[in-house]
C-alpha cells in the first residue's frame, strides 16, 4: 500500500515536468523579448541588454528553464512585467473569488445531480429516466457563456432578482457576496450537473445489477433502503472521482464564467494577462492551475486505493 502511494506520487513528477516544459517552451516561442517590453518603446539598446542580463534572458534556454524550475520549487514564479508585483501575490489576490465560485458550483450541483442520477438509474429506460437524460444532454450542450447570458437576461434584466455582474468580497458584506455568486454559479453548475447525473446513473445501473441488491430486495427491504444504503454506498467512489475531477476542471472552466459575470478571479487574471502579453503571469497561473489538476488526479487515484478494500496493490 505504502509502496503504491510512493509509486503513484513519483509517477506524477515526470508529468509535472512535462507540463512546465510545455508551458515554458510555448511562452518562450510566443514571448518576443520581455526585456524590450519592460524597457519601454524608446529604450536604447544597452538598456535592453542590461535588463536581459539581469533577468537571465541572455543565457541558453535550458539554463533559463533550470532557473525557472529552481525558483518554482521555492514558490517563486517571477514578477509581472506590467505591475512588477510577484506573480504568486497576484494569484493569491484572485484566489478567493475563484474558490468561492467553485464551492458555489459544487453546492448547486451535488444535491440535485446525485438524487436525479439515482432516480434515473432506478427507473432506467422509462420515460422518467429518458426525460432526465434529455435534460442532461441539453445541459451538456449549452455553452456556459450562452447560459450565462440567458440567466442575466431573465433573472437580472427582466426579473431584477440578481445583479447582472460584479463581485463583492465577503469581508465587505456576506449577504451581497453570496447573492452575487448565485448566477455565475448556476451558469457553470448546469454543465457539472449534466455530467454528474450521467455518471451517477451509469454507476448506479451497474451496482443495481449486483447480486447483493437482489438479496437486499428479497429479504424485504424497502426500495429507499436498498437504493441509499446498499446501492449508493457502493456507487459513491466513482461518483466522488467525478466530483474531484470537477474541482480541478472548474478552476480552468471558470475562465469563461468570470469573463461573463466580471468576477475578478484567476481566470480573468489569465485572460487579462494574455491581452497585455504579460508572459510571467500567464506562465505562472497556467502552471499553478495545471499543478492543481495533477494533484487532484493523484488524490482521486489514492482515494480509490484507500477506500475500496477490493482494490489491492
Amino acid at each position: 500500500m505504502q509502496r503504491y502511494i510512493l509509486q503513484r506520487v513519483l509517477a506524477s513528477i515526470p508529468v509535472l515536468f512535462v507540463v512546465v516544459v510545455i508551458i515554458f517552451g510555448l511562452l518562450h516561442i510566443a514571448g518576443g523579448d520581455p526585456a524590450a517590453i519592460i524597457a519601454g518603446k524608446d529604450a536604447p539598446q544597452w538598456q535592453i541588454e542590461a535588463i536581459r542580463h539581469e533577468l537571465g534572458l541572455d543565457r541558453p534556454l535550458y539554463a533559463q528553464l533550470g532557473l525557472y524550475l529552481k525558483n518554482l520549487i521555492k514558490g517563486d514564479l517571477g514578477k509581472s512585467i506590467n505591475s512588477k508585483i510577484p506573480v504568486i501575490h497576484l494569484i493569491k489576490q484572485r484566489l478567493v473569488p475563484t474558490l468561492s465560485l467553485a464551492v458555489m458550483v459544487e453546492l448547486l450541483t451535488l444535491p440535485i445531480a446525485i438524487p436525479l442520477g439515482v432516480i434515473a438509474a432506478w427507473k432506467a429506460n422509462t420515460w422518467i429516466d429518458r426525460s432526465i437524460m434529455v435534460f442532461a444532454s441539453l445541459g451538456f450542450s449549452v455553452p456556459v457563456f450562452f447560459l450565462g447570458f440567458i440567466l442575466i437576461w431573465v433573472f437580472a434584466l427582466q426579473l431584477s432578482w440578481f445583479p447582472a455582474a460584479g463581485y463583492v468580497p465577503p469581508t465587505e458584506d456576506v449577504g451581497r457576496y453570496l447573492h452575487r455568486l448565485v448566477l455565475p454559479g448556476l451558469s457553470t453548475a448546469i454543465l457539472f450537473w449534466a455530467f454528474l447525473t450521467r455518471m451517477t446513473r451509469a454507476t448506479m445501473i451497474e451496482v443495481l445489477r449486483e447480486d447483493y441488491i437482489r438479496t437486499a430486495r428479497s429479504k424485504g427491504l424497502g426500495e429507499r433502503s436498498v437504493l441509499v444504503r446498499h446501492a449508493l454506498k457502493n456507487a459513491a467512489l466513482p461518483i466522488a472521482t467525478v466530483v474531484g475531477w470537477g474541482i480541478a476542471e472548474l478552476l480552468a472552466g471558470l475562465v469563461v464564467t468570470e469573463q461573463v459575470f466580471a468576477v475578478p478571479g484567476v481566470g480573468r487574471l489569465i485572460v487579462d494577462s494574455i491581452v497585455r502579453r504579460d508572459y510571467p503571469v500567464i506562465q505562472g497561473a497556467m502552471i499553478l492551475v495545471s499543478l492543481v489538476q495533477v494533484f487532484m488526479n493523484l488524490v482521486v487515484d489514492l482515494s480509490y486505493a484507500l477506500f475500496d478494500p477490493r482494490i489491492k496493490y
Partner: protein
Amino acid sequence: MQENKTQAPIRVAVEEREAWSARRKAIGKGLRRLWRRHPLMFVGIFIMLCMAAMAIFAPLLFTADPLKVDPPNRLLTPSADHWFGTDFVGRDVWSRAIYGARISLAVGAAVGSISAILAALIGLFAGYWRPFDNVIMRVMDGIMSIPDILLAIALVSIVGGSIQNVIFALTFVVTPRAVRVVRSQVLSLKEAVYVEAARSIGAKMPRIVFIHIFPGTIASVIVIATIIGASAIVVEAVLSFLGAGTPPEIPSWGTMMAEGRRTISQAMWVVGFPGMFLTLTVLSVNIIGDNLRDILDPKLRRSG
C-alpha cells in the same frame, strides 16, 4: 437454343432486381430497427443536416451582406426584412449567423477528423511498442493536465488568430484524450486470441498492427471523433468570445455573442440566435455521438 439466348439476360435482370429489392428490404429493416431503438439519433442527424445545409447554402440563403454596416438601422427587432434583427452597427443577424455556421462546422469537422487520425496513429504506435509508450503517454498526460481552454488560448495567441491556427491549436489540445482511448484498446486487442494466432503463423509487425489491430479500434475512434468535434465547436466559440479565436471581421457565433453582450439589455436577439444555433449544433453532435457509442461500441458505454 434460341430461347435460352434470349432468356439468359432476362433471368439475370430478374435476379438482379430481386437482389436489389432484398437489399432494400434489409436496409429498410435496419433503419426501422434503428428508429425503434435509437429514435433520438434521427433527431440529432436531422438537426445536423439542417445546420450543414445552412452552412453550405449560406450564399443562397443570406438576406443582406453579413459585413455591411448600417448604423441608422441598428438594433432593429426581428422582422420580415431582418429575420433575426440587426446588431449594434446595423448588420443583419440572420446572414451573419448562417455564415457563422460555416466556421463552427468547419472547425468541428476538421478538429474531429484530424485528431482522430492522429490519435489512431499515435495510439497504435504507443500501444504496440512498449518502449515508446512510457515517453509518449507522459507527454500526453502532461498536455492533458493543462486546462483545455487555457492551452488553446495560449497557443492561438502564439500562432495568431486564423481559422487554420484555431484548428491547429484545438487539435493539439484534444488529441491526447483520443490517444488514450485508442491506446487502451490496442493494449487489450494485442492480447486477443486472434492476434496471437496471427503472430503464431508468422505475420509480420506492420500486418498485425494495421490489418489485425487497427480495425478493432475504428469504432471507438469514430465515437471519440464526434465527442471531440462537439467540444471543438464549443471551445472555438469560447475562444472567439474571449477575443482569442478567429479574426473578428469574420462572422462567427462566438464573436457575434461577444459583440452582442454590450447591447444585451436592449437586444437579446443579437446574442440569442447565434447562441441557439451553437447549442443546437453541439446538442446534435452529442446525440449522434451518444447513440453511435451505443450502436458501435457497447463497451464504452460505462464511461459516461
